[in-house]
Structures are given as C-alpha cells and as structure tokens.
C-alpha cells in the first residue's frame, strides 16, 4: 500500500507539467476503474481544511470526478515504473512472438472480457500503445513488482523469456 499526500496546488502544478499523452492514459485508467487498486489516496487542501481519504470504491471515483486534479496521482504512480523495465519487457515480448511458429503467433492467447487477442495482436497493441497495449504493459510491470515482493530477484522479463519457443532459445 502506498500513501500519497499532496496539496491541491502541488497536484495542479504537477498536472500542468504533464504531457497530454500521460494525462490521456490516466483518464483511460480512471474510467476503467483499475488504477486505484488498493491505493489509499489522501488529498489535503489547507486553505479550506478539506481532507479526503478514500479507498477503492465507487465513491473514490465520484471524488475523482469532482477533483480532476487527482489524475495527477495516477501519473505520478505510473511514472514509478522505470522506462528501462518497460523497454526490457517490450523487447522480451518481441522475442517471444518472434520465436513462435506462424500458427501459434496467430492463435488466440488471451480473452479479455469477450475479446480474444493473439500474441501478434498483443505485441502490436503494446507497440502502438493502444489502450489495451498500455494496460498490458502496465500489468506486466505490476506482475514484476508482485514477483519481486514474493521472491526477491525474480523478474518478469526472465519469465517471458522462458516462454520463448525452444528453437529460438
């Protein structure tokens, strides 16, 4: 669990400095109700004495609707993932898809809410940074964190590479 504390002014300032792309990603995540997770969010507004702390409930999202400045928190947390890790994961995904036979690369691999994705489609989504692609990469980063907490030294990159077809390893 991570506790975040920031004044409204700090967050607003942070938002202004943030790129449109990241902001768009944050909005997508908020609308899909994923990013909040188990994250307790606290926002203080000293002038009015307002202090809000909410957890992962629908009420959190209504708070967010009234305080769009909270989007900055998402951006801040998403930036905690190192670009190097993301790059390594992307490369491992490329290598994984590249190692598969033509038929395996085109066979459905995962079903997300009724929509199937093949390894090729997953890779394309990640490369093109579509909503699904961004989420897929982000979830692999989360998996990396989860693995490291369970067993220090474990890496999602190494795990992906273990799925490379034998002829490519």
């Amino acid at each position, binding site marked *: 669990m991570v506790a975040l504390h920031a004044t409204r002014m700090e967050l607003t300032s942070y938002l202004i400095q943030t790129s449109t792309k990241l902001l768009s990603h944050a909005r997508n995540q908020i609308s*899909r*109700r*994923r990013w909040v*997770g188990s994250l307790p969010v606290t926002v203080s507004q000293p002038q009015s004495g307002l202090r809000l702390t909410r957890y*992962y*409930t*629908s009420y959190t999202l209504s708070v967010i609707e009234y305080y769009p400045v909270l989007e900055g928190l998402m951006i801040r947390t998403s930036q905690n993932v190192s670009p190097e890790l993301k790059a390594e994961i992307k490369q491992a995904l490329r290598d994984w898809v590249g190692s598969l036979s033509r038929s395996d690369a085109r*066979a*459905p*691999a*995962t*079903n*997300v*809410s*009724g929509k*199937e994705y093949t390894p090729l489609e997953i890779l394309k989504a990640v490369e093109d940074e579509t909503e699904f692609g961004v989420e*897929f990469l982000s*979830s*692999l980063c*989360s*998996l990396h964190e*989860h*693995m490291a907490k*369970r*067993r220090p030294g*474990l890496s*999602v990159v190494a*795990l*992906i590479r*273990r*799925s490379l*077809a034998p002829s490519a390893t």
Partner: protein
Amino acid sequence: MIIIRPAYDRETRATHAIAGLIVPQLPLCRDLSGSQATRLNLQRTLQQNPTVTIVAFYGHGEKDRLFGHSLWNLVGRSLVRSEPTKLLPPEVVSRNVYAVACRAGVLLGPALARSGGRFIGYNDDFVLTIGFEAEFGAVVNDVLLALTQNWGSPNSCQAVLADAWNKLIDDFTYGAKSDIPRAFLVARDALVNREGVAAF
C-alpha cells in the same frame, strides 16, 4: 444455492463448462444451465425457494447487470440488474451473489449490499488465458465452494478470492508451472483478475 450458467457464445460456453465442474459438489437447489438461465426462471426459482441465500453466476456482466441466456447468440438479456432505486428481479434483494463475470462489482455489487445482500465479483474485465481454462476455473470454483461453507465479511471474502488468484500467480511465476509456455501470460491475466476483485 442456485447456480446460473448461460451458454450462448464462446466465452459463456467456457464459463458454462467451468461451472459444470463444480456443480456435483454444490448443495444445489437449482442449476439454471444454458437456455434455462433466464430472468423468469431465476425469479420463479427464488420465489419457490425463499430461504436460498447464495446465487452463483458464471457469464457476461456489465457494471449494473448480469446477462442471461440469449437465444440468438447476440448480447444476452439482463438477468439481474440494478437501477437507481431498485434491483431486478426484486426477489434477488438480500441474497448473496457470487459473480464470475466482468465489471458487475461497479454498480450491481454495491446495490446488492444496500439491499441487505452481499456480492463478490469483479470491478473490471474478467480475463482468461486461452488453453488454461482449467486453472482459472479451479480458482473461481474453489472460492465458490469455500463460500458455500462460510460466506464471511466482505473483507474476508475479498481476501479469499485475492489469495486464490495469488496462488495461481505464484504457481506460474516461480512454482511448478513457471516453465510452461505462456506462464507469464497466465500470471498476468490472473493478476488482472486479482486486481479487479470486489466484495460488498
């Protein structure tokens, strides 16, 4: 308990089969399977069995509803639905609903809780790695079995379901199944499901 498992498209046929594995072990009063999974049948069954507390659902969901069987292989019809001031069908009020379905934890879950019932399901997409339906099915079925023995507080139920997903993640990241091709995909999909767990 009542189990509802429509089967009208590829996904519901998969969840129908998964639910079928647990049916023999459940203390069932009715299995609304395939084309039987309609609102009318659910309503009748609940009226005839007012003491039934648990309703398990395997299929498609949306933020405010669960979908019943569709005769035309299109979008299923609303089976259970929350509206601003009521639940449909009204017989579902005060029941405990376990939903293996997308997103129903967003609105339907809180609405059930307000009605005096309880809900365990997901706030987000339910994800399934193709070829690993048995592993994903074991998670959701084992949790249902545990709930039939003790449906605890929302926090404890959430912990039970999250722990079950964690176990699957561990099996496929550093456990016995970590060498299986696509293990990372199984672990990722299980992690997405774990993050979406919702209990009210």
